[in-house]
């Protein structure tokens, strides 16, 4: 709802007031007629009534909540010497959480304020575990802070709201029954303005009545906005205190990243085992078989067929060489030795081995940690493999720069685009795996790949994981 334009303080103040007053900027604009229409309409608007109910229900709730909090904390502190004190304190926090939830629901239902539910309460097993988790629950403490601060807010809201509405009613009906009372406005803000000694009585009686009447009208139309300002304040406090705990959110995302990393490393292990089993071990068994056959043939006294033996030994030798090549490729897939020297050498090899002519530009001041270098290397390897298989490109380029603690690797090719993370297929599963790996170290992977145009993939990694 706010149009935050940086720099212009006046505009920002206006925007802030607008937000707190809950004005929808497209509707109001700056045209006076629109404004007048809204002001005329507002006291009867549904929103005004919702806010009214919010105040009506919220205030007793707040009072109850504060009573609960004070009582339990008081009891807890008094009994803190004994074990019960801590238990009561923990109950207090759990209760605050619940109360905070109630307030949140109220806000969602009546004000349309959507505040995300914080993470549910998770506690360690056993009673002591529950106690510990409850006392440490940051969300619970924040909810308690809200419950405590809600009371002044609620009472302020009631004061402003009721005083203005009541006075509007009083003042508008003053001409009907006016004069018979003390002639003084009974309650709240207008009392301050129209208290005795000012505009009261005497030959100015008619003007006095008219003045009060007009003040009533003013109050009637201004009331919704005043209430809205107070509730806007309440909303801000709610957003800060009742929203999910940023620390908890961060912990959750880290836990997810960790789970993904563990899964992917287990999958990598399985892949390695399979490659070794199907490739190298099979080769070696076949090798042993042929040599075994050759050995038996040589051990036979009768009819030694040297040609057969030669053939067997030749095949065995060939098999041994193939096994060596497979092992070498496998080892490079696990960890390329070139990486030990640095990213430059390893990437140069990748660029050279790519069937598409690839240029390499490197500008690294500080050397990243080996883990980051490995991730960067595998990203480039996967991306170049995709380029060769899918892009139908004629040129590709790798750029590696470092800036402000971040390593940026950009792989560009001029082939057909259309690379994305959502497509199903072997190429995108490689990309998805890359993204997981990059996110696990808080990096970013961005793809710009219009259907015809060149594809640019940018990988940002922190220099030190």
């Amino acid at each position, binding site marked *: 709802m706010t149009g935050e334009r940086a720099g212009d303080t006046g505009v920002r103040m206006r925007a802030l007031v607008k937000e707190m007053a809950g004005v929808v900027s497209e509707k109001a604009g700056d045209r006076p007629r629109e404004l007048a229409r809204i002001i005329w309409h507002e006291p009867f608007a549904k929103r005004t009534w919702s806010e009214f109910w919010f105040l009506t229900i919220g205030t007793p709730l707040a009072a109850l909540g504060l009573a609960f909090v004070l009582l339990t904390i008081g009891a807890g502190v008094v009994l803190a010497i004994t074990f019960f004190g801590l238990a009561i304190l923990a109950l207090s926090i759990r209760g605050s959480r619940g109360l905070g939830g109630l307030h949140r629901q109220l806000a969602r239902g009546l004000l349309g304020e959507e505040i995300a539910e914080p993470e549910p309460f998770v506690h360690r097993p056993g009673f002591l575990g529950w106690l510990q988790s409850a006392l440490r629950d940051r969300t619970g403490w924040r909810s308690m802070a809200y419950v405590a601060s809600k009371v002044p807010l609620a009472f302020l809201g009631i004061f402003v709201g009721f005083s203005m509405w009541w006075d509007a009613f009083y003042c508008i009906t003053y001409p009907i029954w006016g004069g018979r009372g003390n002639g003084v406005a009974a309650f709240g803000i207008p009392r301050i303005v129209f208290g005795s000694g000012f505009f009261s009585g005497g030959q100015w009686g008619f003007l006095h009545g008219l003045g009060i009447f007009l003040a009533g009208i003013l109050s009637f139309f201004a009331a919704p906005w005043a209430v809205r300002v107070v509730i806007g304040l309440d909303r801000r406090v709610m957003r800060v205190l009742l929203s999910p705990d940023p620390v908890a959110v961060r912990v959750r995302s880290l836990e997810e990243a960790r789970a993904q990393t563990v899964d992917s490393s287990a999958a990598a292990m399985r892949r390695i085992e399979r490659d070794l089993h199907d490739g190298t071990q099979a080769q070696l*068994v*076949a090798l042993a*078989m*042929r040599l*075994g*056959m050759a050995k*038996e043939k040589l051990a036979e006294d009768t009819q030694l067929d040297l040609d057969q033996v030669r053939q067997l030994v030749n095949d065995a030798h060939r*098999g041994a060489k193939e096994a060596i090549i497979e092992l070498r490729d496998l080892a490079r897939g696990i960890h390329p030795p070139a990486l030990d020297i640095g990213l430059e050498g390893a990437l140069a090899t990748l660029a050279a081995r790519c069937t598409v002519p690839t240029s390499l530009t490197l500008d690294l001041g500080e050397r990243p940690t080996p883990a980051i270098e490995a991730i960067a290397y595998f990203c480039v390897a996967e991306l170049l493999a995709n380029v060769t298989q899918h892009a139908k490109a004629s040129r590709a380029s790798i750029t590696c720069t470092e800036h402000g603690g971040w390593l940026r690797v950009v792989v560009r090719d001029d082939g057909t685009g259309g690379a994305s993370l959502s497509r199903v297929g072997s190429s995108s599963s490689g990309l998805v795996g890359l993204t997981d790996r990059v996110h696990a170290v808080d990096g970013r992977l961005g793809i710009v790949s219009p259907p015809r145009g060149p594809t640019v993939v940018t990988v940002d990694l922190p220099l030190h994981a």
Partner: protein
Amino acid sequence: MVIAEDSAILRDGLVQLLADRGFVITDAVADADSLWRSVERERPDVAVVDIRMPPTFTDEGLRAAIELRRHYEGLGILLFSQYIETRYAAELLADDAAGIGYLLKDRVADVSDFVEALRRVASGGTALDPEVVTQLLGASRHSDSISVLSVREKEVLSLMAEGRSNAAIALALVISEGAVEKHVANIFTKFDLPVSQSDHRRVLAVLRFLDS
């Protein structure tokens, strides 16, 4: 004979080896479905099957072997594996030990042993890898009964559990066949088992005893 092995290198090697030794190889396939079709078509005497095959690379060969034996009477199956899993051996030998073999792929390197095991399976006997036997003997709860046996008797027991005939045991241990028969009788007496005639039945008896 039908060979089922997913690694092409090994498959070709096996074909070459067994053809050289005089076996008639009717088909060489790479997965369990093809194995079924091939057995249906060719009705071989024996099938050499790798346990790990596509699509899941866990125990396709084992499942196929158990099913094939139920379907086709008299089909001998020799199962291959990179690793010996005692659980697989137990499943395989659950009903009947006749015409069953379970070997490590490493055994292929000892060509004559492998061929002999294959012949045994083809003619209805049993061929268990010594590794399986070692594991079973080691894991048995009757280790006290086994320790009562003499060294020679333990050797005879291992070879017997592999499924070898008395003649083969005599050859392996370089003793007379009569001596083997005596040892076998002693073993069965000490285990309190009836002496059975056929080689594969006594394998089963021994294994059941060890497992109980």
